[in-house]
């Protein structure tokens, strides 16, 4: 089977420095695949040793409970990023879904309120997808614009007030029920991560997401409906934001239109720190999960060790720069 026609040139080229760099670069993906795990585990172990209360069931479950909304949004946002887009509207959608569900639940059925919240997310996501593909508006701008529109709608719904649901035990059940002493918020997040993870790694849709983000023109010429695939990714992201808004409203039993202000960036930070490329075509759900939890651990650790929260922000910024820098660097090497 092996005819040596190409082999004479191969060993000769391997000795040049350029090809050695390329050889190193060819190992980069595997390095990046597991890259986030190392600092995550290091931090986890360091916190377990350095802080007594850290490694306790209550604290760890508490972290997961707090992060459940972010995890869901980041997982769906990973699909968008892999497909070559970006979704900056998730924070606003999260807030709108929360306030609409809360408002509705004050006088009507909680299950319908919950469906309404998630449905609003789906609609916003579909709108994002259509605007950024069929109308060809850059998704950064399209979703930024959408976030203003959605925020405005949320303010309109609440008239600027905080909606309080303290006397609505049914609404609390959504996220605060317990199974095997683990809250439903965590169960819902795990289920969402699992579904999206399987979707991305095992289905044709997942492969098409990678192809659309990796080389849209090649995917199109190979018969992949790139626009449809991207719209679906945005729809998933919007739905996830709606679900996340619902969960957090149920967790704290209040909702306001400004609650998602910083959230889009926190979500994006988690995805990127996990190692999903902002340029599309690469990434994984589990990496996003580790990325989000890594940022959460930094926050939790700073709290437990009593460090000024000011430094927490600065640290987060530096971690993000490092993650994006490594991504860019690995791309340069691979050329």
């Amino acid at each position, binding site marked *: *089977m*092996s*005819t040596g*026609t*190409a082999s004479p*040139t191969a060993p000769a*080229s391997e000795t040049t420095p350029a090809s050695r760099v390329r050889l190193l670069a*060819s190992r980069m*993906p595997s390095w990046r695949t597991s890259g986030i795990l190392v600092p995550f585990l290091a931090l986890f172990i360091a916190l377990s040793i350095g802080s007594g209360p850290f490694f306790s069931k209550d604290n760890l479950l508490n972290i997961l409970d707090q992060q459940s909304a972010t995890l869901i949004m980041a997982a769906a946002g990973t699909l968008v990023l892999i497909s070559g887009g970006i979704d900056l509207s998730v924070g606003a959608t999260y807030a709108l879904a929360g306030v609409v569900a809360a408002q509705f639940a004050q006088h009507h059925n909680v299950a319908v309120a919950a469906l309404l919240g998630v449905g609003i997310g789906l609609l916003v996501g579909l709108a994002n997808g259509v605007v950024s593909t069929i109308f060809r508006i850059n998704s950064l701008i399209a979703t930024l614009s959408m976030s203003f529109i959605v925020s405005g709608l949320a303010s309109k719904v609440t008239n600027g007030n905080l909606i309080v649901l303290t006397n609505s035990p049914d609404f609390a059940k959504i996220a605060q029920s317990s199974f095997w002493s683990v809250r439903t918020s965590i169960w819902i997040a795990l289920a969402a991560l699992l579904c999206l993870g*399987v979707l991305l790694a*095992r*289905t*044709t*849709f*997942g*492969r*098409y997401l*990678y*192809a659309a983000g*990796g*080389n849209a*023109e*090649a*995917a*199109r*010429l*190979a*018969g*992949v*409906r790139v626009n449809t695939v991207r719209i679906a990714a945005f729809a998933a992201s919007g739905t996830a934001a709606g679900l996340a808004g619902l969960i957090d409203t149920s967790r704290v039993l209040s909702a306001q239109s400004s609650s998602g202000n910083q959230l889009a960036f926190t979500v994006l930070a988690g995805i990127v720190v996990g190692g999903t490329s902002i340029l599309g*075509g*690469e990434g994984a759900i589990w990496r996003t999960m580790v990325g989000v939890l890594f940022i959460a651990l930094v926050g939790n650790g700073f709290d437990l060790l009593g460090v000024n929260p000011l430094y927490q922000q600065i640290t987060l910024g530096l971690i993000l720069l490092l993650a994006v820098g490594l991504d860019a660097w690995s791309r340069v090497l*691979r050329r």
Partner: protein
Amino acid sequence: MTVASAAPPAASHVELVDVSRSFGGVHAVRGVSLRVARGEVHALIGENGAGKSTLSKIIAGALTPDDGLLRVDGQDVSFGSPRDALHHGIASIAQELTLVGSLSVAENVYLGAEPRRAGFVRRRRLRQDYDALARAAGFQLPASAVVGTLRTADQQKVEIMRAMCRGASMIIMDEPTAALSHVDTQRLHEVVRELARSGRTVLLISHFLSEVLSLADTISIMRDGALVRSGPARDESEESLIEAMLGRSLGSVFPPRPPSVSSDDRAPVLTVNGLRAPGVRNVSLTVFPGEIVGIAGLVGSGRSELAHALVGATRVSDGNIRLDGRALALRSPTDGLRAGIFLIPESRKVQGLVLQRSVLDNITLANLADYSRAGVVNGRRQRQGVSALMDRLAVRVPNPGVPVSSLSGGNQQKAMFARAMLCHPRVLIADEPTRGVDVGSRRAIYELLIDQARDGAGVLVISSDVEELLGIADRTLVMRAGTIVADLRGEQMTEQRILTAAFDESTRNATSRDQTGE
């Protein structure tokens, strides 16, 4: 014919001695020695890929030679960048102009080199400098005209003046008239003559033989990276130039073909009637099953555009496409693929492969649904389906999970063929299937094309390599300016005829006249 040719033979301006340059083991330029005299119009011609652009880039400082010497005015020089070349008075006018459309002519000419005092532009001085320069160049362009509103030929003048104000004594022009209408082409010819009259050297790269013959004092012909000859233009004719650009021996690269079946008794697999699409005007063609049809033509003649229209990647505005007698209405490549038309695009890396994904995923990208149930991909079936095919195509990879970017050009192209074969196309269109492919894989790719034809598919091969078409095609269609201008078969199918049809001047001027009617 030209004014400068009357001048006595001038001293050598730029001289190349045994210059070579290769890209990844492929010699783009090998051992070229060339002398360009001061004040002459020197034309560089050759087929696509003959190495003329590489050579001009070496002179312009955009590429460094691997080997050999470059002399300017008898002095050895080595250029690290176009800036270095400009220091020695050599400037290059790219096909893609680098002007700021919203600024005026004078501002563009002096961009970055404005006469200034304490950071303020001295506007009157700028105006005076410009007027002097325009007089020296013999151009009449108002200083305050906004560049974006000018015709392309005038924009090229601005670009030339910018080079001149930086002291350029040699101007390199790569296909300056390729995108110009007839009128603008005439204007640009005047500009070139003007430059030569004012004592400047012009190195002109062009596909248009009559242009070269009427403008140049000296013509250098390249083939396969080497210089065929360099001599006075008055000794050349269109025929002698075409002959010199051709003429390699047909090696054993091409597999033997069974004599082509007479196509009359069969129904055509593909019929195209009066097709109009972006870059394509009024194309009609017929392909029979088992036939390999070559499509020749210069870059930009509409070959790839035709291929894109046939698979539904661009919108067809008029005409129809029939596959096995059925009329197709293609709205996307997905439709084309479903109907049974598969395109292996011109650029593997830009249009073909998702480079960071695995070989396996790339091969199965177009028919992934065949390996999945309810949307879930069965990885084992995917591997099984592909591995036999990869053995058959001799795609050499350690395992199909490695990124496709780690493969050689030949193996990447085989992966594209593997993708095509999994789709069992009725019509296979291969756009430049052997570009950047080593000789060993080249033969394998020809065999694949022939196999596809033998299995009853209609095969269209787009190629700039005429020899390749002669080697594998049953007949060859030649395209020019978006339409088919020749259908050559049997003994008519010769390099001479193909190139003559592709380069033919008479129709070029006719189409240019069309464009000027704007």
